[in-house]
């Protein structure tokens, strides 16, 4: 497929430290570029086509019709049920992530329109503890799906997650079953679920809700898979191909329907939603 530039990951710049300067340096080609031009170009380097990382808010801005997004994210926050402490208490990690991102947790949920077709959309944010799914993310996804059922709309989920939120232990693991159960209700209601996998979609998120889409679309450069490279090398020390868990790998092995460039995603979705608009 022409869309795969090479068999390696597209490197995705996740550096999002707040910075007031008007210029930035592309980590891929080294070119000094005007930030506004990058933004206008879907956060893709105008010089070398490197994809820069998108926050949930940026993703929404690039994906849905201007002014159409109405946030319905539930006003809830994680409450550290295990009082988990590793090198740092979980409650501190939460506060830091909230401060850094301005988000309550690793997802935003809202009503929106894509080329005038109404949807309910959930968008995960990798900056918030690796986009990991704990009790709050699980609840927000269910809330989004339930809103879609109530309004008779399609549900879209843009995943960007390393997997389960380890600091919530089994509560996190069980979010996989929770989101799967609620996804079943959407199917019973005859409404479509479009799963969009971006960099990265892995672990407990890939092994639950993200893989249960009626249609699964990967953004070019996505990393898709269950057990990461390090896990495999630690447990069974197997040699892995260089394209392991790339979008190309997932596509070639039939795990996803399509791989789409970021700049084409909105048109692709509106084309797809058009089919379902006639039955919902």
């Amino acid at each position: 497929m022409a869309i795969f530039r090479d068999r390696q990951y597209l490197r995705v710049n996740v550096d999002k430290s707040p910075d007031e300067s008007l210029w930035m340096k592309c980590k891929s080609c080294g070119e000094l570029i005007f930030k506004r031009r990058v933004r206008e170009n879907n956060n893709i380097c105008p010089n070398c086509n490197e994809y820069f990382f998108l926050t949930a808010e940026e993703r929404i801005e690039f994906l849905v019709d201007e002014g159409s997004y109405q946030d319905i994210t539930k006003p809830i926050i994680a409450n550290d049920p295990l009082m988990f402490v590793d090198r740092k208490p979980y409650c501190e990690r939460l506060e830091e992530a909230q401060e850094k991102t301005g988000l309550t947790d690793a997802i935003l949920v809202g009503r929106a329109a894509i080329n005038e077709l109404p949807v309910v959309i959930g968008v995960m944010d990798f900056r918030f503890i690796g986009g990991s799914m704990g009790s709050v993310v699980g609840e927000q996804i269910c809330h989004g799906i339930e809103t879609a059922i109530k309004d008779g709309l399609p549900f879209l989920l843009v995943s960007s997650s390393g997997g389960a939120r380890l600091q919530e232990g089994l509560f996190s693991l069980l979010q996989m079953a929770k989101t799967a159960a609620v996804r079943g209700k959407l199917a019973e209601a005859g409404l479509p679920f479009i799963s969009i996998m971006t960099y990265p979609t892995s672990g407990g998120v890939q092994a639950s809700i993200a893989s249960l889409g009626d249609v699964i679309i990967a953004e070019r450069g996505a990393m898709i898979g269950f057990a990461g490279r390090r896990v495999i090398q630690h447990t069974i020390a197997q040699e892995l191909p260089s394209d392991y868990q790339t979008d190309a790998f997932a596509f070639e092995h039939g795990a996803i329907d399509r791989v789409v460039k970021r700049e084409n995603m909105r048109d692709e979705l509106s084309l797809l939603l058009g089919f379902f608009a006639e039955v919902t």
Partner: protein
Amino acid sequence: MSDERTLDLLEAKIEELRQLNSEDGIDLSGEITKLEAKLLDLRRELYSNLSDWERVGIARNPKRPYSLDYIQALFSDFYELHGDRVFGDDLALIAGIARFDDQPVVVVAQQKGRSTEENKQRFFGMARPQGYRKAKRALELAERFGFPAITLIDTPGAYPGLESEESNIGGAIADSLLTMTQLKVPILSVVIGEGGSGGALAIAVADRVLMLENAIYSVISPEGAAAILWKNKEQAKDAAVALNLTADHLHDLGLIDEVVPEPLGGAQRDFGRTSADLKAALTRHLDELRGLKLSELLDARYARYRAVGRFQERESGGA
């Protein structure tokens, strides 16, 4: 503090004396009684105050009864089914029809190997996509004929190799989860040893989830958590505590329904009693579930999973 090996040695010594006692006609009964009392004391000391990390060791003890041991003890006429009808068979995940108290049930379980040779075939109980697809097939068979499903969980996790990813292990687990949330027959799950992550949950979505006293169930292994969160594999003990992965902790957190007791030292010390206790618990829960109308059963299962998770209302103003 004595370890389990010392206790095993002592036990062997007692057995030796017993033989001498009967063969040579030397009266050693006083000696034997004394040693037996000592052994019991030591065992009590060793096992009455187990740390979470020690329980991880017991859950993984290679002498621990595995799924096929329980299947033999709890069911009759186990009729194993093989293959996912697409790609192959997976001996890490076994499935079949059996009788439980004379009633047909479908059994799905992870099976570890006893020997190196067997583990080569059973992948140490780590199932691949074909295993989860076989499980789904067996569960759908249960639904078609109204047989309750009983699943036994004992796995370090799903098999994390290249071939698993090539046939979409994540998708296979996701499909199994969805199937189990909707399956129109009662489902009982028991974590008998290791409940490792998504690979365990994939066959543990149920109306009742039980755990043996020394079983563990976790989102990640203590070693994995130590490597990722502590950046130090040596801190697996701390991770084991932080993860709340023991049966008692998970019961206190309201995440499982019942803890089935084990004898001091673990299920293998008195397998007859452990399996009888487990059977009694399963019978009790199955009777309760059989008393429900299908809609009540499915509504209760849905409510159980819809409600899982802990969070709080956000205070106004702050993030």
